């Protein structure tokens, strides 16, 4: 048990380290020189050299990386090349928006994804199953930005009063905030929930063939009780694995959905900063997104023993 958690924790650390190393390679191989961006095209070579020394760009890569890492661990992610604001402050301003979006999407996806999965398995081979199966197939195949854009179009035509592209903070106007966040969260939950539905359906169907299900049937358990009590309970572990895998899709999805709905989150910060070659911001923001993903998966790992008592008993690593 402790060994399992330790291994997962270590892996999370390694992933973060590799990601940070990869992103730090950024400032080193980028074609555009950050010093030129700050000094402007007309800046004198001396000014550029001075800025380069200030940013530590004249030092070798490893030394740059180590000092960046040391600072990052102390919460200092550097400052924006454009306006000199602290990257950590910029991220702290925007992280709540992305987290709220991701949380709402996760709750929505679990609600309708699990319901649809159980329904599809219960009505296996019937019309409802085929309908849900086709729907979830389309849900995975259609990218969120398409659904988002078309939704914005339809809502602006049919319900012009609904706020679509006007973000308000939760603190300023809670109801308005939830109104604005509902559509993006719904769109973001589509591929997530569709994937959960497919996983849950197939794992329930797989479990149905097992001996203990026959025993339950022989005891006279109703079909409803068999699905809900016996099959779904056992399908929770694969469901949890699927949820962990889908968090990657979720993190990527927030980046795109924030752009579609004009939300001032971490994702739109990354996209804008890449466009402006503001590398310290890109570096900090991508690392924060990566860290969030790694943390979410660590939480999923911690939930395995809660959901499945057998993992607690054996104490060995389980599932991916």
């Amino acid at each position, binding site marked *: 048990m402790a060994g399992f958690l330790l291994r997962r924790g270590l892996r999370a650390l390694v992933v973060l380290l590799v990601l940070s190393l990869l992103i730090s*390679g950024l400032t080193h191989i980028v074609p555009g020189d950050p010093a030129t961006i700050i000094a402007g095209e007309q800046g004198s070579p001396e000014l550029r050299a001075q800025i380069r020394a200030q940013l530590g760009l004249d030092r070798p890569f490893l030394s740059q990386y180590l000092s960046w890492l040391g600072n990052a661990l102390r919460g200092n992610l550097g400052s924006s090349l454009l306006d000199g604001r602290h990257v950590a402050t910029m991220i702290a301003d925007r992280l709540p928006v992305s987290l709220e979006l991701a949380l709402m999407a996760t709750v929505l996806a679990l609600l309708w994804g699990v319901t649809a999965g159980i329904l599809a398995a219960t009505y296996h081979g019937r019309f409802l199953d085929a309908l849900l199966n086709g729907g979830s197939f389309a849900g995975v*195949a259609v990218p969120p930005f*398409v659904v988002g854009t078309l939704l914005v179009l339809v809502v602006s*035509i049919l319900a012009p009063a609904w706020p679509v592209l006007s973000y308000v903070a939760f603190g300023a106007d809670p109801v308005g905030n939830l109104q604005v966040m509902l559509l993006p969260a719904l769109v973001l939950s589509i591929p997530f929930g569709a994937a959960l539905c497919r996983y849950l359906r197939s794992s329930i169907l797989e479990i149905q063939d097992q001996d203990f299900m026959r025993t339950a049937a022989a005891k006279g358990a109703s079909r409803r009780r068999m699905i809900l009590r016996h099959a779904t309970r056992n399908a929770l572990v694969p469901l949890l694995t699927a949820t962990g895998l889908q968090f*990657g899709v979720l993190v990527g999805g927030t*980046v795109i959905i924030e752009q579609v709905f004009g939300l001032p989150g971490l994702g739109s910060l990354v996209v804008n900063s890449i466009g402006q070659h503001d590398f310290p911001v890109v570096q900090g923001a991508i690392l924060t997104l*990566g860290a969030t993903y790694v943390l979410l998966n660590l939480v999923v790992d911690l939930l395995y023993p809660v959901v499945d008592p057998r993992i607690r008993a054996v104490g060995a690593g389980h599932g991916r």
Partner: protein
Amino acid sequence: MDVDLAPVLAPSAGARRRRRWPASLVAGTLIIATMVALALWVTLFGRYGVNQPSGDVLAGPSAAHWVGTDNIGRDLLTRALLAGQTSLLVATGATLLAALLGVPIGLIAGYRGGLVDSALMAFVDTALSVPPVLLALTLVAIFTPGVWTLMLGVGLIFTPYFARLVRGPALSVREQDFVAAARIAGVGGGTIVRRHVLPNVAAPVLVQLANTAATCILIEASLSYLGLGVQPPQPSWGRMVLEGQRYMLESPLLVIVPCAALVLASIALGLFADGLQKQLNPRR
């Protein structure tokens, strides 16, 4: 309706007697083939060039422009069809690159085992635990965006998926008696892998190729939508949606047409992958 077309695709009477082709495989193939054919037709015989402006700006559907024109008067249908070429080019290139790099890595890791295996797989597992979009954004931030960056970046991102897929079967084939026999007979490692291991992994690799291509199309479109993928004037569906958004209340077709084309292509590739899986591995 698609099922009736299956015998047409079957190459000979002998093949017709076999199991029917999965409907999804036939439908997916037909849709993709139609899209490719239409793009070719537009390139060769089309009335308009991709970037050729006409006098009509933001025009609605007419006899001259079947689904209208965009904000600088370019024919929307021509652009939507040719954007499919860009999309397929990126998807094909990236997928082939991922397979050409990933399959050998997986084969070597699985067949050699030991330290080589541990080292390669540690690398693969780390790469697999970072969300693809984050990797793509990082790569786009480093290099200038464009078709070749996309192809290379997305290809590298999917390399570990192929390596992981191939390694397992390679590992199990290594332990088989006939492989030991071949080795004793003096057959070299490379030949064993080519003759005995590769055929065993061919089916899952084919399915993975189709699945990866489907995902690549979505990643290309999403990155282009963010302005970080295919750059103008080269047409791409994502970029068309991005540029059309500003005018979509006046002429909704500007976003509807590229969205519809993208969804059609994505679903077609999804169906193709699904059908291929059924055809090659009927048990599941």
